[in-house]
């Protein structure tokens, strides 16, 4: 007991526990704020049917009673908090139940939480990918243009950066869709999957995927699981390799991890175990599918690669657009902080020592200019769901943002409000996780 207490009140543990407490407080404030603002709007859902001749006043009263709108406001507030904590975000008005048994609470309607569970991974994969790509490019370019201050490159990239940073996103996205999808025809116009590719899968995999649940989700989530696992593996190997003594050991571990990652990925996606078959497998217990099980798979199953390729193909254009729009912000930020760092004494000292230019730039100036960029990365990840609304809608990428906008436009309030609350909570939790990582990477933060 004492040791636990000690761990929680010193150093990193103290930092984490304080942050967690703060986040819980903020979470509570956020949920209360949303409740108050929504409650302050005139009327309620039943007013929607005032002009509807099919719904009599008695029926409207029944709706009010059913939704609990006749209860006193305080009781509704506690219900709202309790329901959120227990994972009930309400039942959709529009989406019907897709399982073979009625839902215990929503009966023939689909629970909002179920919808969010389906949509969230799609949003996360899209936004995580573009965030990493665009931050890397922005960091790299910002570093370069700050180093060559006053060159034509700087003016040119500042102008391009400002235009891309402030461009009207939906408009720009539409132009890119027109250019790449309509004009060149290299990528699909939009959507999440190509239905033609999946009709077969749905037929063959019906038993394995479960009644009513689309195989798409299972394949997509499996893909995510593998990609995420391999990324973690490679990242872990990289971090571990930094503790090794000799550069050649470090290099060997890093390249080895990368190679293992690619081989596993190839085996998984291509489904080919050398000399056996290049046709692999999806369905059957794909959730925890392991490539060696491939031997016991029956013939005639569907190759996984075209399916994964289908996702990737649909992801290319959104990622390109989002990267173009957002790398500029990082680039400008990096340029600014880099300009500040370059005036520091230690940079001059490094130059005076006679270190090569690129070493001073990369190891002395850029490393220290990185912190504000990491801060903005944290915010970018936290806001991924919120900022995704426009892009997802333009590209018909069926993620959280599109769900929120569509349900708001359709007056499907349980889903709209449920995903709004969830979006905020997601942002808070993502922020907490990123904060802890940040403190781990930069010791100055946690000893503040």
């Amino acid at each position, binding site marked *: 007991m004492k040791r636990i207490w000690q761990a929680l009140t010193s150093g990193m543990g103290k930092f984490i526990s304080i942050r967690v407490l703060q986040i819980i407080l903020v979470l509570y*404030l956020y949920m209360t704020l949303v409740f108050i603002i929504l409650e302050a*709007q005139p009327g309620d859902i039943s007013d929607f049917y005032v002009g509807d001749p099919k719904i009599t006043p008695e029926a409207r009263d029944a709706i009010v009673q059913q939704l609990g709108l006749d209860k006193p406001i305080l009781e509704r507030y506690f219900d709202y908090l309790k329901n959120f904590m227990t994972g009930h975000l309400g039942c959709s008005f529009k989406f019907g139940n897709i399982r073979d048994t009625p839902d215990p609470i929503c009966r023939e309607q689909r629970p909002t939480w179920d919808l969010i569970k389906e949509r969230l991974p799609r949003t996360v994969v899209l936004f995580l990918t573009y965030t990493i790509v665009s931050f890397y490019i922005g960091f790299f370019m910002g570093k370069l243009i700050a180093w060559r201050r006053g060159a034509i490159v700087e003016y040119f990239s500042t102008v391009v950066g*400002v235009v891309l940073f*402030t461009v009207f996103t939906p408009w720009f996205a539409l132009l890119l869709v027109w250019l790449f999808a309509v004009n060149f025809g290299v990528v699909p*116009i939009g959507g999440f999957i190509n239905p033609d590719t999946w009709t077969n899968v749905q037929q063959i995999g019906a038993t394995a995927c479960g009644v009513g649940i689309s195989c798409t989700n299972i394949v997509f989530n499996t893909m995510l699981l593998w990609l995420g696992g391999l990324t973690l593996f490679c990242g872990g190997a990289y971090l571990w390799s930094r503790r090794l003594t000799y550069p050649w050991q470090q290099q060997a571990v890093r390249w080895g991890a990368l190679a293992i990652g690619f081989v596993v990925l190839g085996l998984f996606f291509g489904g080919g175990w050398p000399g056996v078959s290049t046709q692999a497998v999806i369905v059957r217990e794909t959730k925890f599918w392991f490539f060696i099980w491939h031997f016991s798979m029956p013939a005639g199953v569907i190759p996984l690669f075209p399916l994964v390729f289908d996702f990737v193909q649909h992801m290319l254009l959104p990622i390109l657009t989002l990267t173009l729009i957002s790398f500029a912000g990082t680039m400008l930020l990096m340029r600014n902080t880099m300009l500040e760092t370059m005036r520091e004494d230690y940079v001059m000292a490094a130059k005076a020592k006679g270190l090569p230019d690129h070493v001073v730039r990369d190891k002395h100036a850029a490393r220290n200019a990185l912190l504000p960029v990491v801060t903005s990365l944290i915010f970018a990840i936290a806001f991924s769901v919120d900022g995704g609304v426009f892009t997802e809608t333009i590209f018909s990428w069926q993620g959280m943002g599109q769900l929120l906008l569509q349900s708001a436009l359709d007056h499907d309030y349980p889903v709209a409000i449920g995903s709004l609350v969830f979006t*905020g909570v997601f942002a808070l939790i993502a922020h907490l996780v990123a904060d802890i990582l940040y403190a781990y990477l930069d010791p100055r933060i946690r000893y503040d």
Partner: protein
Amino acid sequence: MQAAPTFEPAEALWRVRLHLLGRGLAGSWAMFAESKIGLTGFGIIVFFALFGLLWPIYPWLMEHVAWTQEELEAARTVPYGAISSIYQVYDPVNGYDPLIPGVENPTAPSRRHPLGTNQFGRDILAQLMASTGSEFMLGVLAALITVIIGTLVGAIAAYYGGIVDTFFMRLADVFILFPLISFLIVLGSMIELTLLKLAFILGIFFGFGQITVILKSQALAVKVKPYIEAARVAGGGHFHIIFRHIIPNLLPLSFLYMMFNVTSAIFSEAALSFFGLLPGVKISWGIMIESAHTLGYILGGRSFQNWWLWMPPGVAITLLCSAFYLVGRGLDEVVNPRLRKR
């Protein structure tokens, strides 16, 4: 008994203050004018301001410049849809040109319609001009509210510290991480958002967020300056110190962040109206792009043949947003000496 000595300044006090203010502004302007990006942005803003101000006289101007006497006569006497005044042609919401048959719309830029007409026959330039004023109003109003709230709260939180500080900083955490776009979408589907309401909501949400934190840290640096101590010793009250000594020193930074907030406010409005969530707004740049998009003029494969439908509003939003951003960057170099050239 001796009369209390009175101090008679050589000049009236207000004149001295005005003079000082003028000199301060001239100095700041000279520094601001050094940065090319800031000046470019300022030029674009002036251009759009003139563009928006030109709107009330635009139909009159067109009547005298672009329309011939015969055309005017014809427009007043066509069998159906005859107009009684030129304003009917250039109405941004339901104007039409009686000399152009409906099926010919959208028409390419011509003498009477410098940027062409859209698919319903509305003059694009008129729509563009009519929206400029409201975009400006929204952006500036939202940013003003943001800055007023941010400066006040930042100064108060820094000055009092303790529980006040903690409360406002936690509140700022909520507002920083608040999914504003999602929230506006849900709200827009519930009530009829007008530009004024939107400006207030945006102003309040931005005001309690990031800007409070930034201005508070600046105010903390001001608070420990000797002149604050001097003011307190001289008997200045809390109110006096906050409003006369702390806030004036925050204003340059507030003004800087105001510019960035104008950009975000204009962007939010355009995006919301693009998705049809601002039914209270009849015409705006976002709506212009939306109507071109929903009728297939952007993705229809013949985009560049109908460029006047989607190019002007998109370019206008981008230009105005980047103009405020550029001014902000220019001011940044004035306010933040560390960014100045080596």
